């Protein structure tokens, strides 16, 4: 059997790194890598060559029994009867599963891997979210027109910046940690009950809003919140944001449009020179004014809409992504070749289209 790795010009990352191949290598499996797949992430073809054949996209699609990529290829590119691994995001692109099935492709969506404790080693959402949270703060602080830490200097005293983090998931928590490291005073919001303790466990202040819907048993994901609650929260956020220098938005409800937590006029109330980094941009953003994949100025406030910040540090991002995928692939490999066991809840859970 043959596993093929795609080169994705639109993303600086790559789905598998040379060292992953080294770990996965078994007699029954051959690896092929599209030319230049890892260049942008500083993994030259030469490094892949040790374990894999470097081929063109066309050849790869022809030969591979299992095609691995970060973003899905256009369905038609997949050969009938092959397997495909990628972030298909069936919740966003609701038709993809269907069309893949029609194409006769068995597809596993990395974002559908159940978030059980056991599956954490394959939890790409977590690993990428972590990076995103970290990068969001670096980007935000860099774009901020002020110091983040407090500075008492001969030229005057600078007060520490206030950072507001919306959504204390993996990304949010990482953002909190990074912002605190830089010396900011950090506040965070979330609707999950557990979030309060988690936020405080990072030494940040948690801003509570009464009446959140209970969500235990939602497998760590947030549930839809009542409109009246969101209103309350928006009011609270309005207040905090207007005082904040840097706002990091990570609030998401999987499969739904991201909750809007910052209205346009909240933004106009913010101090000029402030910054909003919206990681939820791809699903509409937590800020009304956010434009996905764009950085705009809104009454002196810089609003960065980017849900793919992980791509800003391709090398480590690819390493983690690759490890996740590799751990996932390990489940496929039985007696030296590929045969996924669909009784395994991780495999079945992530399989969105099965060739019948």
């Amino acid at each position, binding site marked *: 059997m043959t596993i093929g790795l795609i080169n994705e010009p639109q993303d600086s990352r790559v789905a598998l790194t040379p060292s992953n191949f080294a770990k996965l290598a078994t007699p029954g499996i051959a690896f092929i890598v599209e030319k230049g797949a890892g260049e942008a992430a500083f993994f030259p073809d030469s490094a892949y060559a040790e374990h894999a054949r470097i081929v063109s996209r066309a050849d790869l699609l022809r030969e591979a029994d299992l095609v691995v990529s970060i973003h899905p290829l256009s369905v038609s590119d997949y050969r009938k009867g092959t397997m495909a691994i990628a972030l298909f995001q069936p919740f966003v692109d609701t038709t993809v599963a269907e069309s893949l099935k029609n194409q006769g492709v068995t597809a596993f969506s990395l974002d559908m891997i159940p978030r059980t404790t056991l599956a954490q080693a394959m939890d790409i959402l977590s690993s990428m979210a972590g990076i995103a949270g970290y990068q969001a703060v670096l980007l935000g602080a860099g774009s901020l027109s002020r110091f983040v830490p407090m500075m008492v200097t001969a030229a005057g005293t600078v007060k520490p910046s206030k950072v507001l983090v919306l959504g204390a998931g993996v990304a949010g928590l*990482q953002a909190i940690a990074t912002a605190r490291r830089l010396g900011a005073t950090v506040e965070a919001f979330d609707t999950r009950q557990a979030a309060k303790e*988690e936020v405080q466990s990072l030494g940040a202040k948690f801003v509570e809003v009464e009446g959140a819907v209970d969500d235990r048993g939602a497998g760590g994901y947030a549930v839809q919140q009542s409109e009246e609650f969101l209103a309350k929260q928006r009011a609270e956020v309005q207040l905090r944001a207007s005082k904040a220098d840097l706002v990091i938005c990570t609030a998401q409800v999987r499969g739904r449009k991201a909750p809007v937590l910052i209205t346009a006029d909240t933004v106009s109330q913010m101090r000029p020179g402030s910054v909003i980094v919206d990681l939820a941009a791809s699903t509409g953003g937590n800020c009304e004014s956010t434009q996905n994949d764009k950085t705009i100025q809104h009454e002196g406030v810089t609003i960065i809409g980017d849900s793919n910040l992980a791509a800003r540090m391709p090398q480590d991002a690819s390493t983690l992504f690759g490890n996740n995928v590799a751990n996932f692939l390990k489940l496929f490999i039985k007696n030296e070749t590929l045969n996924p066991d669909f009784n395994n809840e991780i495999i079945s859970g992530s399989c969105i289209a099965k060739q019948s």
Partner: protein
Amino acid sequence: MFSNYLLDILYLIASVTFVVGLRMLSHPDSARRGNQIAAIGMGLAVFGTLFFHPSADIETGQARVNKLLLIYSALGIGGFLGWRSAYKVKMTAMPQMVSLFNGLGGGCAALLAIAELKQQYSGHDPSVSALILVLFTIFFGSVSLTGSLLAFAKLEEVIKDSSITFSRHTLLNVALLALILSLIGYTVWGAGHAGMTWGLILFAVALVYGFSFVAPIGGADMPVVISVLNSFTGLTAAAAGIIYDNLAMLVGGILVGASGSILTVLMCKAMNRSLMNVLIGSFGGNAAAGGGKIAGDQTVKEINLSDAAVLLNYSQSVTIVPGYGLAVAQAQKICKELDDILDANGVEVRYAIHPVAGRMPGHMNVLLAEADVPYPKLFDLEEANEFLPKSDVVIVIGANDVVNPAALDDPSSPIYGMPVLQVWDAKSVIVMKRSMKSGYAGIENDLFFHPKTKMLFGDAKETLQKLVAEVKGL
């Protein structure tokens, strides 16, 4: 005459060594030497008695030789048995050994009191005060004899606790005590020359009482009881000291009597039980279960701060396993402080970081960086599982799922297959958490019931602060 003076001095030295010895015994660093010093003092006292005591040369010629033969053989036998049993017994069985020896000490006192009693009635009328002392000695001596022997039997589990008690046991004891006191009274003031026989009766009853005194008390409370009997024996020794006006005996006895009593109290404190409860054996029953919390059918062992402190401070290498609880308690800084102190005391401290410890990737790194723990001290899962078998103590601070053996050995567990830190490979494990509650995964953790594990309940920050204080105190 001169020999007399010498004896005085030897006894004096002995007495002082007893004090100093005890003093040193109460600090870990000096304890061992303290014991040795006291032993030397004891040696001197015995030696002095053998050679310089006036009574040593009452007899002459053959008679003397025989007498000495007798004494030395007795010493030989006792010494040999004592030494051998002391070195045969395995660490875990030490307490019963102590109990046994203590009982014999008591027996010794009782016996010599009887002999003395015999003396008293040979010839002239016995003096009241002397009689009282003698009977007192017989009483306490024999109580501590049978009491200790029973304690020994219980600890050796030759006898099951419950088997020998019955309702109203306390009543019986009170009755016996009353009987004994009246016996003493009668022997002294009423019995006249029949006193000897009555003394022997007292002896017999006392033996019974000693047994019945310990009978209702649970195995877990044994140490306390032994300590009580220990101070009893001390008192008998003192009494005997007065009888023979022998200052070494007097001082030695009193010291043990006093310190023994204090010690008893301290022990009760440490187990937080009241002495009364222990002696009436009111909840001997559950206490028998090692004083620990009962969870399901299993029981967990707790460790107190000072034991934990010593355990850590005197080990070669300590591994700290931080978890979400460390973060919740915001105890990273004080944790680093513990690290520093141990380090200063020559203990190698390492941190084992589980990939998913905490609630976000790198959670523990953030914490420990905040506390300035140098990177080289941090080890990830693979590295850690390498050296864990080699570390003496593991402190698990607010971690749970990441040290759950179920991940390895319980296929039914939701976390089965997740790699975990195999802390149970270390020599011993201390787990700090607030309760027996489960962690993120919401599952039970058998580690807490593992024979090597001791729990240290409480908020991580507070506990660590106290612990640091304890270690500094050593």
